[in-house]
């Protein structure tokens, strides 16, 4: 890791923190307010790639665990991580890594649809598999009951994956940071 990688990792950890203060989107039909923050994992992964994206989110989670109020509504600290939503916060690390891994593989001809698929796989599928398992573990609900409790957030997350894909494709044009795999 070069100094430049370290700086990028720190920048995207801070970027994810800054997303908490973006105005929340409110879905027209369901009315669930969704915060922009979970886009941090998708964007960090698809701009920085697997290793640096995962490291950026790991750094963000460490800052939250240390008690800094970086989550929406100024929340933070061990109590949030120990609570039912904590699994989603911890899984952001893996979500960013998987999103980045897919973007790296598809980098040489990445388009919106591929970037969207990467964000959906990493930032929704992987995230929910572990996030729901955590809810189930902490609350004692069965896996399916826990999954039912979080289904309402998926439409919002799909919108966020769409926005993250647009951002990823646009940034790739002006500021590409992932190298195409040597053998492609």
């Amino acid at each position: 890791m070069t100094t430049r990688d370290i700086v990028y990792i720190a920048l995207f950890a801070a970027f994810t923190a800054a997303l908490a203060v973006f105005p929340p989107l409110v879905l027209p039909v369901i009315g669930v307010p969704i915060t922009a923050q979970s886009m941090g994992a998708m964007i960090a992964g698809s701009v920085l790639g697997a290793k640096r994206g995962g490291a950026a989110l790991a750094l963000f989670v460490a800052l939250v665990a240390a008690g800094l109020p970086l989550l929406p509504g100024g929340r933070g600290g061990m109590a949030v991580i120990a609570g039912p939503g904590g699994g989603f916060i911890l899984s952001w690390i893996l979500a960013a890594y998987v999103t980045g891994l897919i973007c790296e593989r598809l980098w040489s001809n990445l388009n919106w649809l591929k970037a969207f698929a990467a964000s959906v796989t990493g930032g929704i599928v992987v995230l929910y598999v572990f996030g729901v398992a955590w809810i189930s573990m902490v609350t004692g609900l069965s896996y399916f009951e826990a999954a039912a409790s979080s289904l309402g957030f998926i439409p919002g997350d799909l919108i966020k994956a769409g926005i993250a894909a647009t951002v990823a494709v646009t940034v790739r044009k002006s500021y590409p940071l992932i190298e195409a795999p040597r053998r492609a």
Partner: protein
Amino acid sequence: MIAAYRPGTSIVHRLPAGAKIVGLAMAGTFLFFVANVASLVVCLLAVLALYPLAGLSLRDALATLRPLFVILVILVLAHAWLNGWEVASGSGLRLAALVLFAGIVTLTSSASAMMGAIETGLSPLGRLGVDVEKISLALSLALRFIPMIAAVGAEVREAQRARGLDTSLVALAVPLIVRTLKMGEEIADAIDARGFGTTRKDGPDRST
């Protein structure tokens, strides 16, 4: 707000942050093996007793639980409906005890002590080739970048408002990211120019 650290001199404050994190992990694991409702009540009372011990009031304990209150009520009702009252009260008590314990760790340890504990916890990785000095650099850089990115974000939003684009997340995020990436390059050069990492035997990092 949960995140606030309350400075103090109590015995809980004086425990090293690392010990409190390990304690939380152990208490968390232990709680999942306690199934009996009466024992869980004892656990919850024991955690509550830590608050006065740390010089905090029971009001602070309530403030820690408040963001969780709605979820707790829904959880207990859902459990009562699906699995009966015994399971419902058990899982409610367990979750409350866990969050209260975690809350006391945050309330009695400053963010810098917590980050120090994280760095110490990672230091054995140094022997596995992980550069702990770089992790410390990343932690302190991120702290500095948060207000900086928020300031750039406000500027970008102002500029996009002039164009009528201030409600579009894409129009806000893309310029923000490109500007911060450019800044990142300059910052990395500045850090290298000051000789970061030159104490290592392989010399400065010139691989960029």
